[in-house]
């Protein structure tokens, strides 16, 4: 029997197994998944927890619920992959031999990588993040207690998971303080290492305009050197200082440490792969999927989802010694919450930047691209149901895996 080991039972790993299993010949494969946590977290929900829209319990379900029968889930930490010997060694001592390995161990915020950021004097007190359940919950308490002052939203370095999330957080914070009647007591500053509000030109202009309208100050080209905990300010590599009363940062994102220990990662522990097939550049029997790979696409659930639509076909062809023919295009599709019950939708890939127009979706859509509408906001909220009930179980969604130009306006 062939052994397939999947490291990580998050969004990408779970979808991959659910899509792959029905296509594998019965009795020929043993699939083992390894993950440290028994909990599957609906990560888009992190954005809403600080504002009290979602409660922590609403975004967590047991991983077991989404792992198909016959697949073993091992709750353990990975020590390292010995790619020459085709063996995964777990910290607890167990060894898992594999014929094929899928690395789906994602990306994690690492406040320890910026001097002063995780200083116990300030961490989870005046310095927060919202990419973990613990962090989003602590930030909720901090926001409730916040009565005015300088709120600085900050990105440490690209790439980050869900690159639109810090902008969404900023828009929602603006709406939240208005709702509480203290917006005029709050100075909102958006600090980014990028040249503008976002990465892609058309989108960056549109989103930058949305910051202006809300009187949110944009501080671009800011590469952080350290957090000065005592003085409560962030300091850049070129000695710019930004004081804060409350800092909401997106810490440096890195892939799993075992990837580095195994010699399989780049400088941020992401696994170099072919960007169209997700096959490792170093080993012919290792794939890296979801946020764990180094593909130049957004680190986002939608990218994991679209790429996994194509993955089973490629995997089966590769295992059978045939060429892989399904070429992933970097397709991403993100709802952007903009506050006051509205949102935007962007749809893009490796080569086409987000543009305005309509996003056709039979039965529910069309959604409006790159403009604020209520339908987009409801689309985002509806998505939680789709995630648990359709996406993770590997069912087909009525969305094309590859980006389509239908409805998009390309002029200008």
């Amino acid at each position, binding site marked *: 029997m062939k052994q397939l080991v999947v490291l990580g039972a998050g969004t990408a790993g779970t979808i991959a197994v659910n899509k792959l299993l029905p296509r594998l010949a019965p009795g020929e494969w043993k699939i083992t998944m390894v993950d440290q946590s028994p909990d599957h977290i609906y990560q888009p929900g992190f954005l809403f927890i600080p504002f009290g829209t979602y409660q922590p319990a609403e975004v967590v379900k047991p991983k077991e619920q989404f792992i198909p029968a016959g697949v073993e889930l091992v709750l353990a930490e990975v020590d390292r992959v010995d790619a020459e010997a085709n063996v995964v060694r777990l910290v607890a001592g167990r060894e898992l031999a594999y014929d094929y390995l899928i690395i789906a161990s994602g990306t994690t915020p690492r406040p320890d990588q910026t001097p002063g950021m995780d200083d116990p004097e300030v961490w989870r007190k005046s310095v927060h993040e919202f990419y973990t359940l613990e962090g989003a919950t602590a930030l909720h308490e901090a926001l409730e207690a916040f009565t005015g002052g300088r709120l600085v939203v900050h990105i440490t*370095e*690209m*790439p980050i998971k869900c*690159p639109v999330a810090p902008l969404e957080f900023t828009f929602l914070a603006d709406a939240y303080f208005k709702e509480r009647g203290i917006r005029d007591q709050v100075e909102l500053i958006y600090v980014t290492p*990028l*040249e503008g509000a976002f*990465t892609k030109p058309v989108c960056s202009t549109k989103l930058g305009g949305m910051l202006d309208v809300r009187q949110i100050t944009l501080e671009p*080209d800011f*590469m952080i*050197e350290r957090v000065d905990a005592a003085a409560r300010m962030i300091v850049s*590599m*070129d000695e710019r200082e930004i004081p804060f009363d409350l800092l909401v940062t997106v810490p440096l994102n890195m892939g799993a440490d075992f990837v580095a220990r195994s010699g399989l990662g*780049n*400088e*941020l522990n992401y696994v170099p792969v072919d960007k169209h097939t997700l096959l490792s550049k170093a080993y012919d029997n290792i794939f890296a999927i979801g946020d764990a790979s180094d593909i*130049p*696409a*957004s680190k986002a659930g939608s990218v994991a989802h679209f790429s996994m639509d194509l993955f089973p076909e490629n995997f089966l062809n590769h295992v059978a010694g045939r060429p892989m023919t399904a070429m992933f295009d*970097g397709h991403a599709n993100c709802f952007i919450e903009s506050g006051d019950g509205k949102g935007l939708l962007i749809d893009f890939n490796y080569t086409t930047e987000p543009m305005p127009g309509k996003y056709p979706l039979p039965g529910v859509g069309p959604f409006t691209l790159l403009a604020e509408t209520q339908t987009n906001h409801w689309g985002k909220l509806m998505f939680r149901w789709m995630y648990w009930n359709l996406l993770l179980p590997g069912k087909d969604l009525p969305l094309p895996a590859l980006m389509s130009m239908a409805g998009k306006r390309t002029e200008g």
Partner: protein
Amino acid sequence: MSVATIEGYEVHVNEEGFLTEYDEWNETLALKLAENIGVEMTDRHWEIVRWLRADFKEQGETATTRRTQTVGGFPTKEQFELFPKKPAKKMAYIAGLPKPHGCV
């Protein structure tokens, strides 16, 4: 994309003035490119630019500031001192490479 003449060399550039053909670059050109953006090239500047060129040849993409630090051994802080404000962009521009895409 268009063709520009820099220091007597005909080169292909994109809308932001970045060279688009790896092999059209040379050090005379780089001096002029540096001058265009107010950078005075010292030995250390050249070390970084030459490393970026070599790394691109191997990797097929431009190193980010982080890679330039961890793999190339040039501290990010120093990159900011040598190429003020926007080191990633300025280094790529002078080295005749595409802007690095840490940003998607």
